[in-house]
């Protein structure tokens, strides 16, 4: 059983300085952040600069191009560092991982921590272009969000690693923004991922093209079945159902 004081280390394989934005995505609703950041890493040819490690992580490695790699890795392009995970996070690891990431971002002087996910909508098939909503940690981030034409999610619940990351950011004082795209709950949703990429482009000054992603939507949906299925169980553990409820003190 992992306690929140258990060590999770952010290891830089290439020293990281001058990082303005840190964008974090873990497998969640519709695999939105995983698809978006996976596409961005390849499309923008981001450079691998580090990884996360902990004795409490399961003994899982991923092999790419014959090279063994930890499943949670950092990539960089310019002022943006991206954190991607090839596995959903086990519930007891969520707090230690988010705490380690936020503390790392604070020491690096990150100006804005951005995390993203899907928000499940039952009528996703009727939605041609999913909307992206934002949750800002405070007024300065809210201004940035509005300048990027991302409307605010005004009332609701959030559950998952993105919620945990915001909790840590609020406690530590690191500016944080959550992006949420309307998405399928249980099926990989490249359309929602493309919507999030467009919002991210406006926020961090990227020009990641989504044409290829949308042209190969079906291939993405086929390839990520196992990850989506594995993520479903984790979504139950974090009480994802809350996201469909109205809060008690709704105004």
């Amino acid at each position, binding site marked *: 059983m992992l306690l929140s004081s258990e060590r999770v280390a952010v290891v830089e394989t290439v020293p990281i300085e001058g990082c303005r934005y840190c964008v974090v995505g873990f497998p969640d609703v519709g695999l939105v952040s995983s698809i978006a950041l996976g596409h961005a890493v390849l499309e923008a040819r981001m450079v691998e600069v580090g990884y996360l490690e902990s004795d409490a992580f399961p003994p899982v490695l991923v092999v790419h191009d014959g090279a063994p790699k930890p499943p949670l890795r950092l990539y960089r392009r310019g002022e943006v560092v991206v954190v991607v995970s090839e596995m959903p996070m086990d519930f007891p690891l969520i707090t230690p991982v988010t705490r380690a990431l936020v503390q790392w971002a604070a020491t690096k002087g990150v100006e804005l921590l951005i995390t993203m996910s899907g928000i499940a909508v039952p009528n996703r098939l009727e939605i041609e272009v999913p909307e992206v909503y934002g949750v800002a940690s405070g007024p300065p981030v809210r201004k940035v969000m509005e300048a990027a034409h991302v409307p605010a999610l005004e009332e609701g619940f959030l559950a998952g690693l993105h919620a945990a990351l915001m909790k840590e950011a609020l406690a530590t004082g690191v500016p944080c923004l959550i992006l949420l795209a309307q998405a399928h709950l*249980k*099926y990989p949703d490249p359309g929602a991922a493309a919507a999030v990429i467009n919002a991210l482009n406006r926020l961090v000054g990227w020009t990641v093209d989504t044409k290829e992603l949308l042209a190969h939507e*079906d291939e993405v*949906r086929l390839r990520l*079945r*196992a990850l*989506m*299925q594995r993520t479903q169980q984790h979504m139950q553990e974090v009480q994802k159902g809350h996201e469909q409820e109205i809060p008690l003190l709704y105004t």
Partner: protein
Amino acid sequence: MAFGLFDELAQELWDLERGSFTPLVSVTETEDRVIVEVDLPLVQKEDICLRLVEEGLEVEASLTRCVRYARWGTVQRSCEFRTLYKIVALPCPVVAEGTTATFRKGILRVELSKRRDVNVRISVT
């Protein structure tokens, strides 16, 4: 193909013998209907074959093209996958009459009527 050792999540997502992938499926119920949703990427409506069998709802759909992940794993890399296939277990008995099936934006939605053998009203005293 059942590996047995692996957790349920990892089992049966692909079948080398059949050359098939197992699609993602979602089963929900209303009072009188069972609704099955199946995510069928790379499939055209005409190539979907649906059957009600003893074990459940059998879904077979040929992919518009063969898919091969030439760099994946060991045996997997040589397999040409040609279909999506699954027998979806149903939560209760259903009847074939009144079944509807629609295919939209790559998602198959099948609505089946629950079987009602017995309908006896019980009075409460």
